[in-house]
């Protein structure tokens, strides 16, 4: 298999080429053990010899189970790792987009006049040139947003 084909396989699937190989080997090995076990058991009438063949068959099932378990475990791990990487990128993209969309005034704290219970953007015409104090956006604090500048 060429290097580009290997890279394509590893990019388009949660498993690496070595994991695919290992699982394939475990399946082939267990099927071969099962066939050999059946061959040995059916070729003799002695139960003590057949017991060995049954043990071989059980070993085949165990080998297949271990191979399948690690196959699924590696796949699940790869998907979870990629999910967390993509989530990180989504968060970065969303926060970058949010920063681009926000005007500069949104990053500033709202203000209010001393005698008023309305809070404004610092650039609002209603507070322009007047003495202001920092205000809270929380309505429970007894303040309301200005209807002109909509802070």
């Amino acid at each position: 298999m060429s290097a580009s084909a290997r890279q394509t396989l590893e990019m388009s699937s949660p498993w690496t080429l070595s994991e695919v190989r290992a699982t394939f080997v475990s399946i082939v090995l267990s099927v071969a053990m099962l066939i050999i076990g059946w061959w040995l058991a059916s070729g003799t009438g002695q139960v003590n010899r057949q017991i060995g063949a049954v043990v071989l068959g059980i070993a085949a099932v165990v080998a297949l189970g271990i191979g399948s378990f690690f196959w699924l475990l590696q796949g699940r791990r790869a998907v979870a790792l990629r999910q967390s990487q993509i989530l990180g990128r989504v968060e970065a993209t969303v926060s970058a987009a949010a920063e681009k969309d926000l005007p500069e005034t949104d990053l500033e704290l709202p203000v209010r006049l001393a005698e008023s219970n309305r809070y404004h953007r610092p650039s609002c015409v209603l507070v322009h040139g007047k003495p202001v104090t920092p205000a809270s956006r929380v309505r429970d604090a007894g303040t309301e947003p200005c209807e002109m500048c909509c802070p």
Partner: protein
Amino acid sequence: MEMKSFVHAQWDRVTAALMVLVGVIMLLIGWIGVSGTGLSAEQMPYVISGGLGGIVLVAIGCTLWLSADLQDEWRRLDALEKRLEELSRRPDPQVRSSDNGAAPRRRERSTAANA
């Protein structure tokens, strides 16, 4: 035609279902073979071929089905990553509008509230 395209698109799940089906049939054949004789020496080959063989086929089928689910998830992540790359490559609209001499884009929420 639809069946053919379905099998082509879902070959892994179709194979998995077939393997589970064949595995269950093998288990049944094994049980019939074992119950049909009282001699242990005649029962053993059925235990291996029908019983253990059936279990192996069912296990491979289940693994294949779960692998198909993981593969689907991986493809969805591929598509999401591609979409994210497109979004991050998209030029900044504020820079573009400033280049044209127009005013920077206003936030839509403020416009909607004033209206």
